[in-house]
């Protein structure tokens, strides 16, 4: 292994020298020239977003943040950072992702620890994903960390790793962790023809973040955000049992499903739309037949059979880890047991009333014309 590593290092050095390698001086703060370049920089450290090679200390102008409810990604620990060029700010929106200025970088590092019940002990980084607001839109660049955790290299084709952990429930798990390739980034980050961030919406950010203060206020104070009103929507924390099941489930669906399952997402054609604003029962899957689920439907007839989670395709797909059945399709290789339990309870709690959910057609138009 070491010998191979050495050989690869030499190969890399030769390759880089032959092709004209990157600038050699140590970065001092975010490098807008590289951030806005047409191509990805070879290494994460090139961008100057962090003070240290391990990407734990954000550089001046870079702020850590988190979300009220994270997307489930095989229990990965996530560290999020935002950089907005000095003198610029994102424009607030109450419903959509904030409108970030050109030069913005959103960085998300995915990490694991041997025992996820004690995530700080022995934590190591696997990948860092960058979303960069270029002049012509957002670009997504995956970086994969070396085994020492000292550098992350651009990896457009993604990769796969086998990761052994003790999960938060105390069970031993081997995770076939998939690092998405650049195109797979777009699958989730799609809005029509555009690639967009998912996390930085008011409703996901509006709580006390890693600095212990409300993030909307904090971003405003830092000059990262313009135009936040006094009243800002906030998701229900999924794990807060004191809140209504409906609100917690819809918050879960919004962050875990709606990036694809929305009118302009990559699952638009299914007609199953799960964003926070959706209210039509059939769009949420109630008594809706599957569209293109194939064997992903199992023995189910409806996406949601009200009052019967076990008969619902929704649950069948969340409860599977098999490609072709599992939903979400990307970003998870194991089952989100907590999420599954939540959605089960939500469906089981629905009134078992088929007749009220379906309309008769308003008019059957004549054929001959």
């Amino acid at each position: 292994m070491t010998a191979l590593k050495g050989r690869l290092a030499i190969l890399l050095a030769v390759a880089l020298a032959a092709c004209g390698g990157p600038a050699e001086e140590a970065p001092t703060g975010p490098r807008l020239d590289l951030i806005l370049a047409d191509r990805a920089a070879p290494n994460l450290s090139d961008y100057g977003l962090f003070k240290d090679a391990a990407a734990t200390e954000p550089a001046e102008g870079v702020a850590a943040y988190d979300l009220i409810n994270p997307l489930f990604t095989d229990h990965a620990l996530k560290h999020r950072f935002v950089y907005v060029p000095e003198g610029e700010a994102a424009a607030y929106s109450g419903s959509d992702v904030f409108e970030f200025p050109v030069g913005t970088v959103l960085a998300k590092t995915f990490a694991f620890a041997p025992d996820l019940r004690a995530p700080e002990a022995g934590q190591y980084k696997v990948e860092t994903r960058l979303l960069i607001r270029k002049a012509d839109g957002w670009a997504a660049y995956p970086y994969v960390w070396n085994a020492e955790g000292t550098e992350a290299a651009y990896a457009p084709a993604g990769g796969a790793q086998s990761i052994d952990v003790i999960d938060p429930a105390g069970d031993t798990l081997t995770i076939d962790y998939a690092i998405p390739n650049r195109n797979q980034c777009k699958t989730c980050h799609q809005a029509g023809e555009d690639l967009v961030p998912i996390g930085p919406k008011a409703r996901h950010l509006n709580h006390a973040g890693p600095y212990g203060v409300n993030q909307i206020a904090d971003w405003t104070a830092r000059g990262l955000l313009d135009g936040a009103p006094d009243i800002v929507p906030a998701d229900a924390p999924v794990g807060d049992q004191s809140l209504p099941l409906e609100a917690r489930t819809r918050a879960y669906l919004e962050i875990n499903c709606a990036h694809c399952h929305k009118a302009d997402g990559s699952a638009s054609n299914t007609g199953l739309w799960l964003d926070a604003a959706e209210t039509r029962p059939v769009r949420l899957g109630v008594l809706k037949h599957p569209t293109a689920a194939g064997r992903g439907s199992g023995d189910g007839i409806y996406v949601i059979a009200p009052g019967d989670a076990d008969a619902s395709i929704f649950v069948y797909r969340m409860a599977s880890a098999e490609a072709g059945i599992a939903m979400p399709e990307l970003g998870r290789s194991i089952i989100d047991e907590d999420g599954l339990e939540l959605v089960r309870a939500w469906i089981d709690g629905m009134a078992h009333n088929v007749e009220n959910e379906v309309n008769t057609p308003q008019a059957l138009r004549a054929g001959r014309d």
Partner: protein
Amino acid sequence: MIRMGWIVGASALVLAACGGSESDAPASDTAVAPPIAEITVGAEGDFQTALLTALIEAPEGQTINLPEGAFELTTGLSLDVDGVTLLGAGQDKTVLSFAGQTGAGEGLLVTSDDVTLAGFTLQDTKGDGIKSKGADRIVYRDLTVEWTGGPDEGNGAYGVYPVESTDVLVERVTVRGASDAGIYVGQSRNIIVRDSLAEYNVAGVEIENSIGADVYGNTMRHNAGGMLVFDLPDLPMVGGHSTRIFNNEIVDNNTRNFAPPGNIVANVPSGTGVIIMANENVHVFENQIRNNRTAGVLVTAYQDPFADENYNPLPRNVVLRANAYENNGYEPQGVLGDLSALMGGALPPVIWDGVDRWGEGEAVDVNLAVMEAEDVGFINLGFGAYPLDPAALAPSPTRPDAEAKAEPDPITLAHDGA
């Protein structure tokens, strides 16, 4: 604890750094080389990473050649660059097997415009074979998508699956073993499917919730249902219309229906040549329709409850003309099998459910024009109202009074030079 990851990353970097003009040199490097018009993915080394990288890093308009050989892939491929041609050495020469696939929902996903896929085979994908979504002016040509274990509930749903696209060309494509439709075009406009072979699928070819399709010169055989033209409710695009099905061989579609039960095609009785359901302005003519044990052509309403106010569950303006029928309906399956038992055990080749109204509502003019030779048998099951009431069965051999709707103009595609 961690295997491989850094190697993948490093090798990807080597590829990226030395990919000719596609160097990831910093922006200070002002020299911009012209894009490479054509590259070939090597058969040696890590084929999957090399191919993924080529698809991701391709400049617009590039041709990516695939080498001859059989290759094992463990994850889905995807293409999101306009104008790329992905060209194999031939259906029998470049074979990509996904039997060991552990990630992604399909074998190949295309999300960009003006893409041509040609000359290769995909096998045993866990989900769909090739899906193209929002991919206008796509060409599927000389491709095979197959599940090598034959009909099986565990096979992927669709073989070739263009959706939400305008100008779709599928030609000389073979699909085998799909657990839904072999060649499926959904929620799209301006479509040609021709000179292709669909066999041992649940449905051979399906045009669904789409506007403007010509399906000709194909063979649909040994499926549960050969050719479906459907419109389904509660989808973003409803109101499919204007499809011409002609000069196809629709024969021996007697394979058992192996679709998972929740899918609409699970309702297709094994042994059906053509089904037209809830679609409008559909013309079926000059096809060979033989040896389908349940029915040659079945014209039917959508039969489930739905919530979509814009949806019309009736077929309308259907023309059946000058098709050659032979030996259909000799052993009807499913609900039609039960009905046929009341009528002597066999059915004529052309069947209409006779539904023309909702509940107690007004009857509308379905306008089904059966312009077949005099000796072609027809039955109107006479159900009248939707949802179906079995007790309402009132079969009649009389062809409905109809005024054949004019045939739509032939489809011309923006990108079809043929």
